[in-house]
């Protein structure tokens, strides 16, 4: 260490000997200093985020692994949890409430399981998004990284969780006689679009949850309402056939219903185009782009404030 700094002034005022007379702003400008913690431009932000892609992926996989690491059955729960979930819904809605009205049993069960898994994907992305910042304040206050890494990472974790559930889903679908064919390839675009939509939603919820942590208490009720309104366990066109058409249209055009229906269309042989609303792919794409872009920009706008909590 050099001893040259010992002649610094003792007073409380900033010791700016050679740059005497400059204000802090001028001094900073003269030596090319920048404001600490300032929000980068949108382009720069995307670049920073891309640089952190390995962290985003590693963080999501770490969270996924850590989830069941204390359980005796370990990672088997990745598959067992969605399976049990589907069994509960089948017991209540399929057997007790007979919500399978209008659909044969071999269509209804894959229909229900697909709906539960696909909706859970969106639901858990939203719930993880709400807590992405507010639940990780320690991390936000300790290290530098684009904060969008967190909600994106959590959405990615849910995608990986869904891929595990897909094993169960394939088994159920094949078990009821719907064998893999070309239409199964549609799963890929559906998943991509739904992932974009979920990520955007998670980003929006992350910013809202950072400002108002109370959302974590409120969201379960919102999500449950959304679930029952999206036809997870019943077919919207069949159940609402005697109601005004606009209600069914409204419900069918909501993003969750669209992604569920597209996935069912891809997997189940007898679930044909007549169950889908018009222009369904355009709608699926529009929701994805709208939320992904809008959510990202909305989140970025508050980037410098997330440490405040």
């Amino acid at each position, binding site marked *: 260490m050099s001893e040259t700094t010992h002649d610094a002034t003792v007073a409380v005022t900033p010791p700016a000997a050679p740059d005497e007379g400059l204000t802090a702003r001028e001094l900073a400008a003269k030596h090319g200093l920048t404001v600490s*913690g300032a929000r980068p431009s949108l382009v720069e932000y995307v670049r920073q985020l891309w640089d952190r892609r390995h962290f985003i992926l590693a963080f999501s996989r770490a969270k996924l692994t850590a989830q069941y690491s204390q359980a005796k059955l370990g990672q088997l729960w990745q598959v067992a949890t969605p399976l049990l979930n589907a069994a509960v819904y089948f017991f209540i809605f399929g057997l007790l409430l007979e919500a399978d009205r209008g659909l044969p049993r071999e269509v209804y069960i894959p229909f229900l399981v697909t709906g539960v898994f696909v909706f859970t994907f969106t639901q858990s992305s939203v719930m993880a998004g709400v807590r992405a910042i507010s639940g990780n304040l320690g991390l936000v206050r300790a290290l530098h990284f684009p904060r969008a890494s967190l909600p994106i990472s959590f959405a990615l974790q849910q995608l990986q969780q869904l891929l595990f559930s897909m094993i169960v889903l394939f088994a159920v679908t094949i078990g009821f006689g719907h064998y893999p064919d070309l239409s199964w390839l549609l799963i890929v675009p559906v998943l991509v679009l739904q992932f974009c939509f979920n990520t955007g939603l998670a980003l929006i919820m992350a910013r809202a949850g950072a400002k108002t942590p109370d959302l974590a208490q409120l969201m379960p009720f919102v999500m449950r309402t959304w679930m029952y309104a999206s036809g997870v366990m019943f077919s919207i066109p069949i159940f609402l056939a005697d109601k005004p058409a606009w209600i069914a249209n409204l419900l069918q055009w909501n993003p969750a219903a669209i992604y569920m229906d597209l996935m069912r269309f891809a997997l189940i042989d007898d679930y044909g185009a007549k169950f889908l609303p018009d222009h369904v792919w355009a709608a699926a794409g529009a929701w994805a782009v709208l939320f992904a872009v809008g959510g990202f920009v909305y989140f970025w706008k508050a980037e410098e404030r997330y440490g405040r909590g």
Partner: protein
Amino acid sequence: MAEQQQDARVPTVVADDLHIVYRVNGAKTGKGSATAALSRILKRGEERGVRKVHAVRGVSFVAYRGEAIGLIGSNGSGKSTLLRAIAGLLPAEQGKVYTDGQPSLLGVNAALMNDLTGERNVILGGLAMGMSREEIKERYQDIVDFSGINEKGDFITLPMRTYSSGMAARLRFSIAAAKDHDVLMIDEALATGDRKFQKRSEDRIRELRKEAGTVFLVSHNNKSIRDTCNRVLWLERGELRMDGPTDEVLKEYEKFTGK
């Protein structure tokens, strides 16, 4: 380097009338009943129900390249908050901090997960600090060797929750200290673990300090401040009480604390 010897010193951190305010939900004064909370939400205006803690009040200073600056003051005087604000991790309520490059806080604790193996935590922590996968691969063995985790068997492949608190602290420090920083900030009580490891980590901090342009050190240990710093900022109740050469400030501080 030559420039540094001349009197044209290069500033690396400029704090200009910096204020930091924490907002605490649900710790407000007055009635705590649910109806009171509801009426607070309904009555709009000056963020009701939120208590403000003014942790740093109008701090200004200029730090130069090559300086090692100690931050002292009693508990809750705003030292750690000031560090985080310099690092840009806490937004300023008023005033600004200008920095040369990206100052970083030494520490990765928050990014590590107890349920993961030490091995995966090394990678996760490195990525969280912004290292590339290649850099981590390159330094992985150094990190493990430095931590000394594997001295008593193959512990690095076990989950971190199975480590003793000393072992976990050693691994955390080893990961954090693996990266070089331009403006480095060190919060107190980093040198943890047994005597042998303490010595090793102090050496490592000294090394990091040499590589870094400017170092900030928060500590309650006047000896380590005296050993490492050539300038000291003394904070009290969020205000800068004194700023000057280590000996002078520490003398006043010791008088103040009645040592």
